[in-house]
């Protein structure tokens, strides 16, 4: 039974492995599976979530106020928040950090999230040095003025891209700041051997004395997940950061030794097939609907050993706005054929299905391929490296169909809007964009804008409904065939304790490092 938070003794160490290298720990830049939650532990932002949930709560902000029109956000900072270099964190640092992210020189992938702050255009184009919308009221007060109401703004401030960095350290290390991160987080970096391992150490002066629980976390990189699992069995690894490899899944799941160590959790993820509405014959809604009806999702779930639940709409079930009662397009090959015939394609057609080349994506694509074949669609598979698939999707006339698995879409933050803009909105339907269906519905874009302007927490429910409608309308046009929402199955060693939710944290992916603890020091 998990001990109560107060009873947990601090101390101990944990070893986490990843297959891929950790690229950078600069919060303005890091946007990987590996570094996302590492950065969250090294740095702090104004906002964060309750561990293991999608519930927002202030972090270094003590409190905040939102103006009625939803365009002014004022934050009061906590006392005694220190950087790892000993200096006190001030409101100026917050401003500096966000401006740094927006500054084009930083090349931050997250700059766009701050688009609602006043002065964004000037700052992001490099015309202005800072954001006129951010005002440092005093050392402990900071004020954000938005150019439009933005219901997601608190989530944005919880993003890594809004985490606070000390200016002097950034200037000291220049471009290498990502290798010498100094933040105000619960852990500080104590060792980084490139390509091998990183060691995090507990930050003694952390403003929240109860956190973190561990003294040390060792990250080892470059190891095959299968081997990481072997090492876990051998007691050398506590958390395999890449989860349970598909090849071992059934074996592990059925192994009584592991029974108590496996943790299952939802994810803000949807896997879908995009159909390029600008390419024949997917310009016909009937065809797209036929595809939706042709795919036998249950069989696909079986192929991936049941590690997901069938999806019928863009949003995953744990996302606010998910339409529980929506039935979507049921599996019905006969009806699909009829639809095709209506579209004048009774004899089917030839097309291509792009897919990223790592297991199990090509397998899923093959299952889809077989289903499509049953209704007369001959889709040949193009299985390519991730970068190439993404590039093909960004071309208007290149990829008729793409299976999104492995590339998208895990939410940046738990808000329904996050599933729309870049992947379904008109903004994304540009060359190089992520809207691989090239779907652009001006009406829906307008609706989305309205929804996001509903900042008032009281109207949250209304906003949810609005978003729900947007996604259902999308499904009417069927630019996607949603296939499944992935469930996360992860495993941890017996030594490591903590609420199960921490290991499948929807935000601190894959593990909430600050909150888990070592049992052997209890």
């Amino acid at each position: 039974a998990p001990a109560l938070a107060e009873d947990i003794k601090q101390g101990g160490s944990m070893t986490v492995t990843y297959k891929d290298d950790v690229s950078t720990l600069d919060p303005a830049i890091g946007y990987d599976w590996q570094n996302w939650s590492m950065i969250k532990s090294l740095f702090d932002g104004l906002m964060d979530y309750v561990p293991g949930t999608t519930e927002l709560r202030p972090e270094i902000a003590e409190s905040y106020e939102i103006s009625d029109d939803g365009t002014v956000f004022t934050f009061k900072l906590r006392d005694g928040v220190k950087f790892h270099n000993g200096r006190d964190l001030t409101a100026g640092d917050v401003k500096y950090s966000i401006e740094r992210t927006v500054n084009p020189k930083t090349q931050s992938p997250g700059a766009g999230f701050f688009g609602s702050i006043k002065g964004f255009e000037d700052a992001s184009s490099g015309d202005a040095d800072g954001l006129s919308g951010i005002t440092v009221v005093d050392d402990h007060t900071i004020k954000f003025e938005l150019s439009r109401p933005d219901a997601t703004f608190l989530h944005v401030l919880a993003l890594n891209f809004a985490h606070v960095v000390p200016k002097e350290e950034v200037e000291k290390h220049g471009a290498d700041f990502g290798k010498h991160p100094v933040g105000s987080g619960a852990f500080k970096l104590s060792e980084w051997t490139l390509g091998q391992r990183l060691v995090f150490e507990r930050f003694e002066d952390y403003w929240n004395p109860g956190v973190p629980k561990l003294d040390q976390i060792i990250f080892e990189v470059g190891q095959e997940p299968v081997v990481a699992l072997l090492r876990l069995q051998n007691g050398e690894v506590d958390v395999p950061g890449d989860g349970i490899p598909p090849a071992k899944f059934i074996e592990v799941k059925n192994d009584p030794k592991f029974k108590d160590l496996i943790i299952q959790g939802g994810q803000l993820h949807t896997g879908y097939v995009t159909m390029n509405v600008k390419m024949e014959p997917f310009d016909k809604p009937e065809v797209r609907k036929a595809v939706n009806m042709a795919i036998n999702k249950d069989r696909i779930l079986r192929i991936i050993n049941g590690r997901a639940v069938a999806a019928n709409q863009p949003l995953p079930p744990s996302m606010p706005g998910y339409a529980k009662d929506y039935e979507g397009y049921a599996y019905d090959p006969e009806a699909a054929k009829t639809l095709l015939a209506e579209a004048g394609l009774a004899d089917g057609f030839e097309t291509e299905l792009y897919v990223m080349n790592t297991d199990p994506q090509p397998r899923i694509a093959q299952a889809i391929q077989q289903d499509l074949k049953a209704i007369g669609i001959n889709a040949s598979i193009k299985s390519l490296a991730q970068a190439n698939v993404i590039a093909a999707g960004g071309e208007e006339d290149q990829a008729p169909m793409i299976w999104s698995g492995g590339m998208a879409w895990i939410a940046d933050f738990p808000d329904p809007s996050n599933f729309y803009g870049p992947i379904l909105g008109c903004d994304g339907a540009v060359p190089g964009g992520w809207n691989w269906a090239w779907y652009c519905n001006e009406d829906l874009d307008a609706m989305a804008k309205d929804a996001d302007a509903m900042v008032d927490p009281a109207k949250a429910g209304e906003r949810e409904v609005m978003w729900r409608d947007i996604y259902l309308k999308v499904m009417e046009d069927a630019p996607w065939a949603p296939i499944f929402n992935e469930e996360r199955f992860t495993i941890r060693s017996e030594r490591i304790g903590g609420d199960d939710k921490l290991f499948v944290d929807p935000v601190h992916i894959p593990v909430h490092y600050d909150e888990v603890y070592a049992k052997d020091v209890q």
Partner: protein
Amino acid sequence: MSQTVAEKNTGTQTPSVMVRLLRRPLALTGLIIIAVVVLAAVFAPWLAPYNPYEQFFEGLTIEGAPLPPNAQFWFGTDLVGRDLFSRLIYGAQTSLIIGVVANGIAVVIGSAVGISAGYFRGWVDTVLMRFTDLMMAFPALLLAIVLAAIFSPSLWIVAMVIAMVNWVQIARVTYTETRSIAERDFVVAERAMGAGAGRILFRHILPHLLSTIIVWATLGIATTVLLEATLSFLGIGVQPPIPSWGNIIFENQTYFTSAPWLVFIPGVAILALALGFNLVGDALRDILDPTQQGRH
């Protein structure tokens, strides 16, 4: 090479190479293996018990695990529930084209370059061997990615890439050996007779490299078949669901503890094919090597 003066001139014809091959049990085994694979490749549609692309509903357990070999699926099923046996039979075609044709072309190019550079020395040597160095250092995977984007993936492109990148090692090895052979007295004697480079290279030096070339050619079968899978993985070769022995192994290798048949059976097929060619090659070398005569 047409029949030689020496052969025509004697009454007692020694039996033809083929007959002599057939007389050796090992070579015969090799020939049989090759024949089986070739037949499988050619007659796949008639030989395969199932459609190799069909994902059988009963081909996976409830949990989604593939089935081990059983009465219905002789070699078991793969991760999406297809019949492995049928896929192997169909895959023979790809693997033959890669392992034999592409690899064969690579061997021919490599030997030609290596022998020429080793014999001519001077600028020919410099140009050819530096080009070989260049090709060896050439980022083949990158080329694969580029080609994958430019052309639609096909077996022939991957075969071409393999032929293009795989000749370099053979060139290096034959080069080194040729340098030594070219200094032997009989080569000097040939030059003294006015023999042209072509004759010296192909009639006098090449036969001495035969054993090396056979080794590389036969071992190359196994490695190119596996290389094809890597290249196809990057998108230039055969794309799923078309089977090849290499990609069956490649896709499934992480599953080898939970579904060993998916790795070991195609592995044995590749091994057998390479061994088959090796057995024939070894025998051929013995038969063609006069100093080995007298042993049967």
